[in-house]
């Protein structure tokens, strides 16, 4: 039987598992014996995207390395909610040092493993967007430039959520945060060039750079496994919605991430040695409104006195992404 074709069409092709798929076609999260690198009992908010992203990514890394993973964590939500004395949720060797030094600490771990001849053990460093694009950026660039054998994962929730939702270098334009209030003629965060770390990472010509969201597990896990095939510096940027900071229902975390991708605001792609090698095409294109209007941080763009001008500006940014990465599959363009 042409199982491949049937597989493509069948019910739940995009679901986590599906009984009709053979084991290796299901995601790791479908395995009853998955690692659960981060265990139950952590203190993340209801519907935390970062808790999800971290388990997805590290479980995938664990599978790719046969359980030989050491994790380094920057200060931030993930660190605070996973290891408040006297409890830790981690099931893998894990080290937290400081907010801004995760890449360097990971370099040290990798160096030590090399010196000790532990070739099979791999290092994953993880941080939020603050620890990546802002305070940790110097160390990150250094780690890239030296091409140290570290997979660095940024869980991007677009702000300093741990400290009460302040603006970070990854906060999108017009978004309301505690330090970019939704007041005045230009409410919310400024419109700037933004800090596109994936592309900055690519500029270092490191072996592997990719973006992903918690909305597409198959994609996220494949990218982690792909990253593990390389040695040297690798960067994975994962969009993880924050119900608290974004003002979205805890039940919609994954849905919102999906809209971010399908609106074109968050391009999902991968690159090797500075060259984009693949993009995830948008399956069900949506206008940015559909994404923005579900989040209270963008309330001021709608409601009583709406700001279509700003929404249009954001739509333009999405369109630019769609054009830059070719996010709409050619065969879809006319139909959509």
């Amino acid at each position, binding site marked *: 039987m042409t199982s491949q074709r049937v597989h493509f069409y069948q*019910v739940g092709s995009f*679901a*986590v598992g599906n009984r009709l798929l053979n084991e290796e076609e299901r995601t790791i999260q*479908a395995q009853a014996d998955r690692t659960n690198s981060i265990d*139950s009992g952590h203190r993340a908010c209801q*519907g*935390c995207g970062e808790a999800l992203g971290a388990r997805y990514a590290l479980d995938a890394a664990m599978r790719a390395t046969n359980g030989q993973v050491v994790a380094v964590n920057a200060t931030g939500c993930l660190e605070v909610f996973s290891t408040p004395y006297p409890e*830790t949720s981690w099931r893998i060797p894990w080290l937290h040092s400081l907010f801004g030094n995760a890449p360097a600490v990971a370099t040290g771990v990798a160096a030590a493993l090399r010196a000790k001849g532990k070739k099979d053990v791999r290092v994953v460093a993880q941080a939020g967007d603050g620890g990546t694009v802002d305070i940790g950026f110097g160390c990150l660039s250094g780690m890239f430039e030296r091409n140290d054998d570290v997979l660095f994962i940024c869980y991007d929730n677009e702000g300093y959520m741990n400290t009460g939702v302040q603006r970070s270098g990854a906060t999108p334009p017009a978004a309301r945060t505690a330090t970019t209030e939704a007041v005045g003629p230009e409410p919310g965060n400024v419109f700037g060039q933004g800090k596109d770390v994936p592309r900055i990472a690519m500029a270092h010509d490191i072996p592997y750079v990719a973006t992903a969201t918690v909305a597409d597990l198959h994609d996220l896990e494949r990218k982690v496994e792909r990253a593990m095939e390389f040695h040297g510096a690798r960067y994975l940027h994962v969009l993880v919605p924050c119900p608290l900071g974004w003002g979205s229902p805890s*039940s919609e975390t994954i849905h919102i991430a999906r809209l971010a991708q399908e609106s074109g605001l968050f391009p999902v792609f991968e690159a090797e040695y500075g060259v984009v090698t693949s993009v995830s095409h948008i399956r069900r294109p949506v206008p940015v409104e559909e994404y923005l209007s579900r989040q209270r941080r963008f309330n001021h763009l709608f409601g009583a006195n709406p700001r279509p001008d700003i929404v249009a500006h954001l739509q333009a940014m999405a369109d630019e992404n769609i054009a830059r990465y070719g996010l709409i599959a050619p065969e879809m363009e006319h139909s959509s």
Partner: protein
Amino acid sequence: MKIPFAITLDVGSSRANHTGSWRVERPVYVDRLPPCNNACPAGENIQAWLYEAESGNYEAAWHKLVEENPLPAIMGRVCFHPCETACNRVQVDEAVGINAVERFLGDLALENGWTLPDAGPDTGKRILVIGAGPAGLSATYHLRRLGHQVRLVDSAPRLGGMMRYGIPAYRLPRAVLDAEIARVIAMGVEVQLGHVVHDVEQERHDGKFDAVFLAVGAQLGKRVDIPAGDSSRVIDAVNFLHQVAEDDPPLLGRRVVIYGGGDTAFDAARTARRLGATDAVIVYRRNRERMGASGEEFEQALGEGVTVRWLSTINKFDGDRIVLEKMQLNSEGFPEPTGEFEELDADSLVLALGQDTDLSLLEHADDVTVRDGAVQVLDSMMASPTGIFAGGDAVPAERTATVAVGHGKRAAHSIDNFVMGSDAQVKERHELASFERLNTWYYADAPRTERPELERVRRQTNFEEVIGGLTPDNALFEARRCMSCGNCFECDNCFGVCPDNSVIKLGEGMRYEFNYDFCKGCGICVTECPCGAIDMIPERN
């Protein structure tokens, strides 16, 4: 202490922290009633047998299917499949081809000689089933499974009722009809053909039956008197189709006019074409929108060269010319005469204006109510507390084979309750699985597999079956288009998307359960469940 105090911790220790206490709402797994099941007149558990078919377990699928309906190969051909009209998938791309898969399973069963479940242990009860059409056969099947003895009588020389004498062979090949009927009879049924029951009470008394199921159908074609010359060839569709079915087709000439807008009219027209008529013109007093026939049949008929005269009534028919009067619909949508006339050449006129039931056998059954030529029954299909039940075309309902099969089943169970003296336990139905509850992102677009149609030319000249079957490959594909509305199909989404690892996977076929020790009640599993099989309910404390 081995490791440094406080700054270093042993793995997994957070399991001591039961975050379930954060919860104000809890997710619960539910089963909802899929719209297809809800819409099936035969009460088939469609989703259940599709579920089996999805994994390619066709035999298991077929057995699930015949739990409710012993005639899948027939239904797969003649049913107007309201299930597909109700299918939620319509709103994603197109309905799942349930009817096609049903036929595929039915045919596969015939090929492989799969047998129906054995008759139940004998109860000693005797039931008389009058009429061997879909209702009668369905009732017989279920009664036998319940262990009752059945005598099946019919006035016609062969079994099948309207399925044989109403539905042309190009829609239902006789081989299939015979095979599926034979399978029912093989369960051990006393059959009496060519036997006309004149007095149901007498018949029951003579045969010492504990109950009777009346499924005599509607065999009498309605007549209207149209001024017509003696030479004019006028015949009603029921007889016409009956004679064709008996391989004794009447001579209608080259130009045939059919009067009426129901399926029977189209069956007659298409049959006339096959018998050699150059023109088969349907005359209908209303317009396309108000026509009774199914769209499918209409399209096929036009494809075969049948033409239609909308908004017309036949005023008179003399020999070789028919006079039509143009009509127009009034505000209520009723046709009114316009006084305009036109003529139409015709060698014969077939009247397809509906059918009546011959209920003379009920004359002495005092406590059976007949109104508007139909037997009045309760939901249980009971027509008389003395033990007379009725179904099919003889009772007020949509006159389709599928409805009849449903009647047969329901009647059988009511009869069982009646003769065994137990009272009907009505199993309460789940809430409907609405489209809104689905998360269709998880379903890939998958256009429906159309069953191949014979090219028109061939169709016009013979009675070969018009609609072909599915191949095993596209049958599987079609089955897998089912979205399993409202019923868990074990996609692992809830298990995978829980940020607190608080879903427990119980293993193949055993679904999942929530670990409320850790579930914080975020509701992601509810949003991300593709088929809407999880509800969020308030925590009661």
